[in-house]
């Protein structure tokens, strides 16, 4: 489900962070802004050329979430998922497997679906991050969650925002997607309550709506 994100990523991998406390990122090479170091964040190494070192202490970051600019301080090892949930109180993306299997943390980054547990918060700076909460902007319920509610394609609902974001992204990419294509779009999402049959009903109705419109 998760598409290759070479373009979306800023070249810092979670693995590299997990290996060491700090990491140097070739920031300008990828056209992203270097991390902003604050006065009270002593740099762990001197910036040299276009290489900027951050961490291991907390770094101030700004993320654009559902169109709003939000700032917080996180250690460089913090995932986008944990930054959203623990630091910014954006909890529509759920932590379930925390290792890129279940899809419950799916968010859109610049229109692509991403497992937020498998991306560092620092990597998401300067990107357009959209979570399930954006699908109820200004009190107007998006067609995908509306279909989930109407056909009862959810029970406990913990996986649902992930499914909904995956489908929204697939429909944005191809508004004429077939039910089979939409089923494929959620093959990276897992539901435990077993709402798949109802989800098929919701998907069928979304495809019908597209035909009608």
């Amino acid at each position, binding site marked *: 489900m998760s598409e290759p994100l070479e373009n979306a990523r800023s070249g810092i991998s979670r693995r590299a962070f997990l290996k060491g406390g700090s990491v140097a990122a070739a920031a300008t090479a990828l056209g992203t802004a270097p991390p902003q170091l604050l006065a009270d964040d002593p740099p762990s190494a001197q910036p040299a050329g276009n290489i900027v070192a951050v961490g291991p202490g907390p770094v101030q970051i700004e993320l654009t979430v559902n169109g709003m600019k939000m700032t917080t301080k996180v*250690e460089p090892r913090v995932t986008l998922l944990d930054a959203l949930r623990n630091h910014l109180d954006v909890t529509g993306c759920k932590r379930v497997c925390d290792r890129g299997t279940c899809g419950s943390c799916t968010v859109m980054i610049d229109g692509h679906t991403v497992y937020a547990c498998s991306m560092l918060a620092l990597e998401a700076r300067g990107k357009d991050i959209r979570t399930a*909460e954006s699908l109820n902007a200004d009190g107007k*319920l998006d067609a995908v969650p509306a279909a989930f*509610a109407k056909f009862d394609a959810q029970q*406990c609902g913990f996986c649902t*925002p992930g499914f909904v974001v995956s489908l929204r992204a697939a429909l944005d990419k191809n508004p004429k997607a077939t039910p089979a294509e939409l089923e494929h779009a959620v093959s990276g999402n897992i539901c435990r309550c*077993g709402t798949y049959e109802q989800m098929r009903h919701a998907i069928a109705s979304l495809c019908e709506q597209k035909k009608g419109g």
Partner: protein
Amino acid sequence: MAASWPKKRRLIGTKIPRIDGPAKATGIAKYSYDMNLPKMLHAAVLRCPYAHAKIKSLDCSAAMKMPGVKAVYVYNVRTDGEFVTADAGANVLQLRIGATEDAYNQALKKWEEAAAKAKADKKDPPAKPKEPEIRRIQLGPNDYVFRGIAVVKLADLKPKDKVTVDVERDAVGRELFYAGEEIVAIAADTEERAYDAIRAVKIDYDPLPFLVREEDVLKNPNLKTVAGGGTGNAIPSGNSTKGNVTAGFTSSDAVVEGTYGVNVVCHQCLETHGLVAEWTPEGGIRVFSSTQATVGTAGAIANRFQIPATKVKCVTQYMGGGFGSKFGGDSQDFAAVDLSRRAGAPVKIMFTRADEITTAGNRPSAFGKVNIGGTKDGKITAFEIDVYGTTGSGGGNTVNLNLFPYVYVDSVPNIRRIHTVTRTNAGGARAMRAPNHPQTCTLTEFAIDDLAAKLGIDPLQIRLAGLPDSDPNAMKKAPQSWPALRNSIYKEEIRRAVELSKWKEKWHPPGQGPDTGPIKRGIGMALHTWGGFAAGPNEAKITISRDGSVTVESSTQDLGTGQRTVSAIMAAEVLGLEVKDIFVKIGDSNLGMSGGSGGSTTLPSQGPATYLGAIAARDDLFSKVAPMLGADPKNLEIEPGKVVDKTNKKSWTWREFCAKLGMNEAKGTGEWSQAKANEDPNNSLSNGQVGGVQVAEVSVDSETGVVKVVHLVAVQDCGMIVDLLTTQSQVAGGVVMGVNYALFEERIMDRQTGRQVNPDMEFYKLGGLVDMPKITVEMVDMPERGVIGIGEPPTISTAAAIGNAVFNALGVRVPIIPLTPERVLDAIAKGGKV
């Protein structure tokens, strides 16, 4: 007059989308996992890495000094006693343990009198009361002393104060019985720092011998690696006989011997176990807990911390799956509450995925050697099973492993069962969606199809011939009871399942289908039953305000079952309103009595309570408003959106009518329980015991061993359907869970390390959308029976039906589920067919 459901139902039984659907689907709904309170700390848990070990040493002082760390909690080191004396300078105190000084002196006095009397009577003197032990405790830097709920300094203690002391050193020597057992929890300002601190705990273990596989327990009868009685890990459990099995086999036309098995599966709740706990300024406790029982969880916490239950509030607004594993009073509940009082801040503990799978519940396995005998007319004459299964290191044999061929229990004349619990060094079993039934169903239904094959008949013939008769006595006395209906319910459900699955067209003798290529198709059936009665006292309070708004309040919880929605349906039905007009306030232990949501008891308990409460509120409204309108309350009735005086056809809109309440409001409380239901056996509000028939159609690739379920027909009754949409969801969801444990799910324990090798979601497999069959749900609505729970039954027979369909496709039995490609190919190789 006994209350009954309305004859004409406007909302009940229709398809109504759940009222919290949009909130959940857009991520706005806040689960316990999502709670972020001001100044909240995050806790991480250190767990035993060995399958069996003793703690040799423990030192948390380095962890305590890690950045951001606010409190440390060591599990299982609690000492309760009476304060005797202390040396604050040396940090030493003495506690009287076992009994207080006063209690001991009183007991001593009583004993002296009794001893003197015994001497006079020339009888043996009674045993002298045991003198309380005085324990001298040297406190370490991470040790805590509590008086009541507060952490206290030694200098502030007075003699005879009741105190609780947690001494880290007391963990030394503690025996740990599985990899994952909890040892220390640490709270820090960020989650990352909490895990850093856990890594800084200095701990040494003495590893001990372990057994993690059921068959190894049987091979080592004298090796004991778990706590509890017995010389080994195996304990006999629940043997029984009925009739004469030998005679039954002698009178049969064919006997089949088979060994079948169901592996351990884990609950895999997507929202892991956990909570946020905080102490309120009034000395109470508030928790946001992912629990199936708000009242039970609050009670367990109140009991543990010795504060009044009314001062504990357990909130569960949204819950991310429990399936029987989340009834509260768990070790993490106590750890979070205790860390919170030590740190003076809210504390969140949510399990990691690995912790969830290894420690937070699983379903016992069952491996059984079965002999079944029957006659050509499809009658089972004898059934014999010798079965074992594991409940892990804990759980004993309590998790409902009383295997029996349940649906047919009354009609099989001769039965023998031998059952052994093989305890292993793994996480303890917990109740899981229809405890015992899926295993029993699989082990029985597999044998039935194998018997049919040997007799050369369609297994449908055995299923029909083996159905228990309806009880003529019950048909007279309680015509809506299960004994009165069981035969006709199953017959009707089998009829519908046969039709919907095209059984007559698709069934063929096992392995003799028309397919000539490697892909073989087959069809299989299985039956199930479940209770779904009401439980203990459940209350619902309905308030009608003068602006016409209606609130339903109850402490019950919505696990994703749709309880919030059906509560609204009940009130809306009675008050002539729509579901959107009802505000349902649930998931708060302070809102009256309710039981835990287990055993499919919630709706049969809450449904009638809410309905009765709404009727009481309506009557209260009528009696308060009627005099102001010059009407007689007896003549008023509700029509959709309005109140009508049936004598003169005068009517008021709902809002108009409620506005007459002025400064008042109308209220009603309803209560329901199984005890109330039992008061009148002909009450039509709730009932229990359902049937259910499932038919699976599969295709099996005999070259790769991959099984694909093509179509699954689930025919199900549950008395009166309240919300057809969410009921169908429950049934289809049960089927999906069944497909998962039939084909994919299995806890795999490693003999070498004693650890689970798949404590995750990539190797512990759950199917996705594309893995699932088309599911046809057929509901048999029986409104005359009243409400019956539906959570559990639909997951019982799915795997048995799938296994039988695979047998029908291949002509060889794949005896152990999940039916992985490896097991399918292995069975084909051994079966020599296809």
